[in-house]
């Protein structure tokens, strides 16, 4: 008889792998990708292709020529980063912006730390924020070229700016929120299905929520982080808008406008850059919600989700160290 394998227990392994998890994340992103391609057509597709290809290529080059180790692109994490970055770009962004963002995301935010699992910050967000502060004009240009429109009548109503941008702009110009809202359709229905004006991934809350449900069903993520962020945003904006509805936008608007859902579902839940225990995750998510609302209300940028997540990413090692899971047979009352 040929040789037998002798190794310690357990002798079975679940079918789970990093690759299968990343594949699930991509499947969960599919509705948002489809919506972005439907709305922004070939430009969204082009940005996706450029981001994904650059991310994968950069990771491959670094593992091959700098690390001199077997390639890790098979785990699909670079593809996820590429897709997330593309979904965070304005539809009119030129292709080279996508290349620069991808190089920063993978080359600086991920591989410098040693690759997947070692990075402190979410790579796609680092890419996006790098572009936002380096090329503010391009990154906040939400105009939608005519040729890309498919819903002519609907899109005509918008200047192309995001709802958050419109609100901030109006407030800076001395308008009150009721006046701004009177000129624009910011009803939750409008923003829930398709909000035109915004990055590709922000368009449809419905598509993002479909992805969220898929991730929950596949047990890829737990609902703790997204729900806590949304709840924090709802509470903070609820209190502020109740105090002064002329200046502070309300909960529905803050939840559905901008990148809050995209950020809380797909970026704040990134395993590597979020805490591992429920206790830590709640602190992390409350922090994201608070910082987001601070930037939105008092900052110079209309949107603050990216900053909020990156800032809270810094706290993760500390949260992991001090938030321990409940031990069996400890801190439990018998009876």
């Amino acid at each position, binding site marked *: *008889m040929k040789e*037998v*394998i*002798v*190794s*310690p*227990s*357990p*002798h*079975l*392994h*679940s079918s*789970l*792998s*990093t690759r*299968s*998890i990343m594949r699930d994340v991509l499947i969960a992103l599919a509705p948002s990708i489809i919506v972005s391609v439907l709305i922004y057509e070939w430009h969204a597709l082009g940005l996706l292709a450029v981001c994904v290809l650059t991310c994968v290529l950069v990771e491959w080059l670094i593992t091959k020529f700098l690390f001199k180790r077997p390639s*890790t692109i098979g*785990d699909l*994490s670079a593809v996820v980063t590429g897709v997330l970055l593309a979904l965070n770009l304005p539809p009119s962004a030129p292709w080279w912006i996508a290349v620069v963002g991808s190089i920063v995301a993978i080359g600086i935010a991920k591989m410098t730390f*040693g*690759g*997947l*699992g*070692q990075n402190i910050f979410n790579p796609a967000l680092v890419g996006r924020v790098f572009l936002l502060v380096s090329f503010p004009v391009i990154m906040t240009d939400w105009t939608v070229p005519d040729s890309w429109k498919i819903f002519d009548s609907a899109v005509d109503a918008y200047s192309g700016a995001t709802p958050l941008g419109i609100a901030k702009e109006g407030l800076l110009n001395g308008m009150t929120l009721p006046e701004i809202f009177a000129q624009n359709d910011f009803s939750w229905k409008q923003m829930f299905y398709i909000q035109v004006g915004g990055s590709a991934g922000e368009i449809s809350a419905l598509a993002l929520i479909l992805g969220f449900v898929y991730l929950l069903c596949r047990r890829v993520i737990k609902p703790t982080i997204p729900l806590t962020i949304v709840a924090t945003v709802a509470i903070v904006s609820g209190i502020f808008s109740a105090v002064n509805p002329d200046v502070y936008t309300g909960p529905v608007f803050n939840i559905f406008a901008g990148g809050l859902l995209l950020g809380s579902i797909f970026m704040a839940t990134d*395993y*590597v850059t979020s805490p*591992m*225990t429920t206790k830590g995750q709640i602190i992390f998510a409350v922090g994201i919600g608070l910082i987001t609302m601070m930037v939105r209300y008092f900052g110079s940028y209309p949107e603050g989700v990216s900053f909020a997540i990156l800032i809270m990413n810094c706290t993760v090692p500390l949260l992991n160290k001090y938030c*321990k*899971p*409940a*031990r*069996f*047979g*400890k801190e*439990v009352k*018998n*009876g």
Partner: protein
Amino acid sequence: MRLKTFRMGGIHPDDNKISASAAVEVLPLPAVAYISMAQHLGAPATPIVQKGDKVLVGQVIAEPSGFVSAPVHSPYSGTVKAVEPRADFAGNMVTHVVIDVEGDEWLPQIDRTPEIKTEITASREEILEKIKNAGIVGLGGAAFPTHIKLSPPKDKTAECLIINGTECEPYLTSDDRIMQEEPVQIVTGARIMMKALGVPKCYIGIEENKPAAIESMKKAAADYSGIEVVVLKKKYPQGGEKQLIDAIIHRRVPSMGLPIDTGAVVQNVGTALAVYEAVQKNKPLIDNIFTVTGKCVPQQKNFDVRVGTTFRQIIEAAGGIPENAAKFVSGGPMMGKAIVNLDASTVKASAALLVLTEEETLRKKESNCIRCGKCADACPMGLQPFLLSRLARAGGRQEELEQEKVFDCIECGCCLYTCPANIPLLDVIRPAKAEVIKIMRSRPKK
């Protein structure tokens, strides 16, 4: 109604109970049998027979050598061929009594009639004495001498008995079979142990995936108000002592404590059956029900196997060694041990021979930890396996490992099973745990 289960961690591997419908068959006697002297947790037994001695089935061939130890009885009649060291299934050299099997002659005091005796006449002391003399050990896996577990220390009180019929390990079906085939005997065994412990209450925990066993045990227990069959949600490692107590009576064994600290004593269904046979029928523990299984095995079976039969003989009886067999496991796939030597023989607590193909068992290549926390979610003891493994690999971090309670690890393997990056978590935690426990034991007592 929501089914009970333990409240922390756990995983749901495919249960693969492919041998569940195979009724127990008696395995033919071997020509030569090898009886190990290390059949239980604790000191190995001391052989009292010599080469050339004639032995009968049920005769004592080795005596306990210490408090935590148990006698060994001959499962065969015949002539002692040798008393010599032989490799056990893991390759460790252990003293064996080798017997040339001749016929099947039993000691006359053993009651071999099919009559089921449900009336308990033995006193508490007689029961404990009989269990001790019958060499009964826990058949759930650890093989801890049963009489010790049934005599709690003076300062602790037993409140209830928990019979473990969960059989949460995938593939295994021997407990399922005996619960279907000998439920009255098991219930009687449970009643005997209740009497020994002086407890009024007994719970029999069975997982939901064994409906026939649940029904037969409920029927057998119906006449006894103190005995309750508790149907449990399927989840591994429900059969872990600490997990089972938590699932059934919602109490948690304190860290570094013993099950008796919760007032519960846990015994396996196989042990209950052995107790019945010892006390009611004078039969020592010389055989057990044994599952031969694996998807590649030609015929998955449940055998009544006498102690000292070789694994090779058992697999031959199940249709031979499969062509694509790559790993042989003594026990279940989660906590069983890989067999080095198929010519080694079974011991009292041997429960199964699982044959796996290379495809089923090969460890995949390790990649970076993605900090998903799935190992911590799966850990039934609330530990953080990713952290423990990192500390263990770093070396010299015993102090931190102790702070992180590595000693609480029950080695169930949930972490390794679930890790998407294929990090051999338990493989590196296990030796670190042993080392930390050694350090803790070497400290002067306060």
